[in-house]
């Protein structure tokens, strides 16, 4: 799926969160969005799937302006979009199996056997086949993230949006999740938009990155070029984590 955002603005009261943002994400690209907390990264992600309505601007997914679509038309597109939430957002009254089965039962016409096979296949992919009958409350943070990921890929989406997929995880799990994102992109050829603060994750995942500041795009381009910029904000932003790397303390 190709995503194009044109002149998008969004405010909450007097606080301007996104100010005339434009960007284009090509098919099969892993697109990373950086920015300080509260700069509107998650708001941008939620606008792209119309969980939030922007104040102005246009959002095109595969050439269709989703802001002009009816709920029914929008849902046809959403069926092929996966969203991995920061909090995992697993349905806590359902088991892992029911969580994974939920979109399949309601949006697709698979037989019970086909559903079972799909569930087993995605659970193996995220290395959690043994958790099939567990409740979300019985899972650790990392396991929840993986199940959230499994739920978002079970419908074989063409676009996956990741909202801080590695926040709060230990460095090893962070790397595992990041490699999983890359694997999925290769296996399913999906377009991925990843909101993160995590440079380790970004280094593994990103083909292309933007940095948001004060509601605007401060930088857009390859991740590698962020290290050789003269921009004071960007140097500050990446200093703590990235320049440690440069100083050989990685």
């Amino acid at each position, binding site marked *: 799926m190709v995503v194009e955002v044109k002149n998008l603005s969004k405010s909450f009261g007097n606080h301007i969160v996104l100010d005339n943002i434009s960007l284009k994400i090509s098919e099969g690209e892993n697109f990373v969005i950086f920015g300080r907390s509260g700069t509107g990264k998650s708001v941008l992600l939620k606008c792209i799937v119309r969980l939030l309505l922007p104040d102005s601007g246009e959002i095109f997914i595969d050439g269709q302006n989703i802001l002009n679509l009816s709920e029914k038309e929008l849902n046809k597109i*959403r069926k092929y979009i996966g969203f991995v939430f920061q909090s995992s957002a697993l349905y806590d009254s359902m088991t892992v199996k029911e969580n994974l089965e939920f979109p399949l039962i*309601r949006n697709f016409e698979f037989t019970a056997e086909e559903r079972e096979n799909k569930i087993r296949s995605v659970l193996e992919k995220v290395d959690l086949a043994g958790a099939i009958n567990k409740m979300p409350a019985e899972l650790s943070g990392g396991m929840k993230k993986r199940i959230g990921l499994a739920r978002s890929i079970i419908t074989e989406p063409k676009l996956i949006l990741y909202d801080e997929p590695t926040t709060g995880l230990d460095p090893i799990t962070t790397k595992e999740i990041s490699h999983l994102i890359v694997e999925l992109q290769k296996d399913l050829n999906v377009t991925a938009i990843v909101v993160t603060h995590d440079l380790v994750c970004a280094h593994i995942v990103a083909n292309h990155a933007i940095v948001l500041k004060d509601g605007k795009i401060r930088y857009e381009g390859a991740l590698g070029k962020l290290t050789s910029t003269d921009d004071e904000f960007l140097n500050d932003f990446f200093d703590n984590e990235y320049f440690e790397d440069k100083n050989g303390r990685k």
Partner: protein
Amino acid sequence: MFESKRYYQLEEKLNEFFIMLGGISAFSIAFFKNVFLPPYEFGEVKKHMDELGVKTLPIVSVTGFIIGLVLAMQSQPVMARFGAESFLPSMVALSVVRELGPVITALIFAGRVSSGIGAELGSMRVTEQIDAMEVSAINPFKFLVVTRVLACVFILPMLTVYVDFIAILGGYAAVALILNMNFQLYVNSLLPSLLFSDVLPGIAKTFFFGFIVGIVGSYKGYMADNGTVGVGKASTSSVVISSLMILVMDMVLVKITLIFWSL
């Protein structure tokens, strides 16, 4: 200075109140728009009816029995004063079936269920579970709200009929103790006085009460924000608002009932 601050606080409260009324009205319209559209989540409705009904059963049983018992005990000396003790069973039955049974059951149901729905949907909202449903092309309003409201609408009349019976039994316990009346005489005394026009309006209004409990709890939970504080507020205000709305609705429905069955 102080006066103007109070004025603005009052204005703010009034604004919040009217916004909430508008929100509940819009939520009710959305309910009627969605309820007749497929897919029909009968399984979910049944599941919620089981949960809501079974969980409320113990508390309404105890309350119903005590209401009937106390009503008979309190009324007996007064009725004896007017030489009308023999009408005590009828008085208990009519009071319970026409007013006390439906309203008390609805208020307890509001306390137990509306807060539960508010807290459950509120926590789903703040943990992004409702967003997750929406982005998966599933209508969360239909799956979460319509099913719960329907469950409330269907289960509350059933609970009310049950509470009416239990309260009448409670009344019998008091009458048996005070007047030494046997059960057959008690039943024979109250049955002729109970008319269709007493029973039907009492049961019919609980459909409205059930709707209020379901829609207010769902609205408060669905619109919750501000993390766990918001969930707590949603839960508490669900009970307060649904209880108040039940009492106001009762007043309106009693007036309408009296127009049609002014017996």
